């Protein structure tokens, strides 16, 4: 994680963001950006890297595209589902916190999985303990670990496993 290559990549990403957000190539803007990007790189060199931990294989890149499409579909579904619940006079809820297990090993994979779960229909990641995730579910279909894992985790896991392992 602390390799020169990763740090260079982090620095380049930060500086790229700075230039894009500023939309200016004036000397003083670039100088401030260089200093800020350098300091952040030093301070956060051990943190997660979305890009550099991605496996750069064709299969992983295809999976990344599939993941984004699947995620977009789930995000829209989740909002329509929520709209249905909120607009219904009876407020059909059956909330609970279920436990699911992930087979993802990498930190980045688990982070993206937890984030994705939070944005998909009726589920919210409350806590993570190693391979176990605790999920708040607006309409609990099954409190069984296996069934809940199949319903909540498996869809994303198939993509993330190829991308990050």
């Amino acid at each position, binding site marked *: 994680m602390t390799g020169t290559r990763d740090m260079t990549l982090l620095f380049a990403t930060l500086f790229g*963001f700075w230039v*894009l*957000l500023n*939309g200016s190539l004036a000397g003083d803007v670039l100088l401030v950006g260089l200093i800020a990007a350098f300091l952040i790189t030093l301070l956060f060199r051990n943190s997660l890297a979305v890009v550099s931990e991605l496996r750069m294989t064709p299969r992983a890149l295809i999976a990344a595209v599939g993941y984004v499409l699947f995620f977009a579909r789930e*995000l*829209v579904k*989740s*909002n329509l589902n*929520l*709209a249905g*619940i*909120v*607009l219904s006079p009876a*407020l059909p*809820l*059956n*909330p*609970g*916190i*279920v*436990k699911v297990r992930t087979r993802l090993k990498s930190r980045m994979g688990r982070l993206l999985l*937890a*984030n*994705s779960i*939070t*944005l998909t229909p*009726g*589920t*919210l*990641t*409350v*806590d993570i*303990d190693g391979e176990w995730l*605790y999920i*708040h579910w*607006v309409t*609990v279909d099954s*409190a069984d670990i296996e069934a809940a894992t199949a319903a909540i985790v498996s869809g994303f896991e198939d993509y993330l496993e190829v991308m990050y392992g």
Partner: protein
Amino acid sequence: MESLLAFIGGVLLVAGAAFLLLGGLGLVRMPDVFNRIQAGTKATTLGTLLSLAGIACLQPAWALKLALIGLFILFTNPLSSHVLARAAHRGGAEKSPLTGVDRLADDRRGDQA
């Protein structure tokens, strides 16, 4: 061409605003903190993304900047919800009486015993 883009932008902005409104309604109607976080997170994420896409159609020159903001929201929004939910659970926030299972509380008690 320009008026078509403006039309699409307008539609996206209205759709975004509609989802944000539903999110607000969810905050009022949901019975406890966890369900409220659920309503808040999903609606604000999609609502904001649609609004950003709408602005991008109206001001194509800003598209790249807006895309970066959207990416930032996609990463930070669920994270903050996750932290709030975790803190609420640890702090013993009241759960709706509708709540069935709570495996997290079960496991916590198991650790203490």
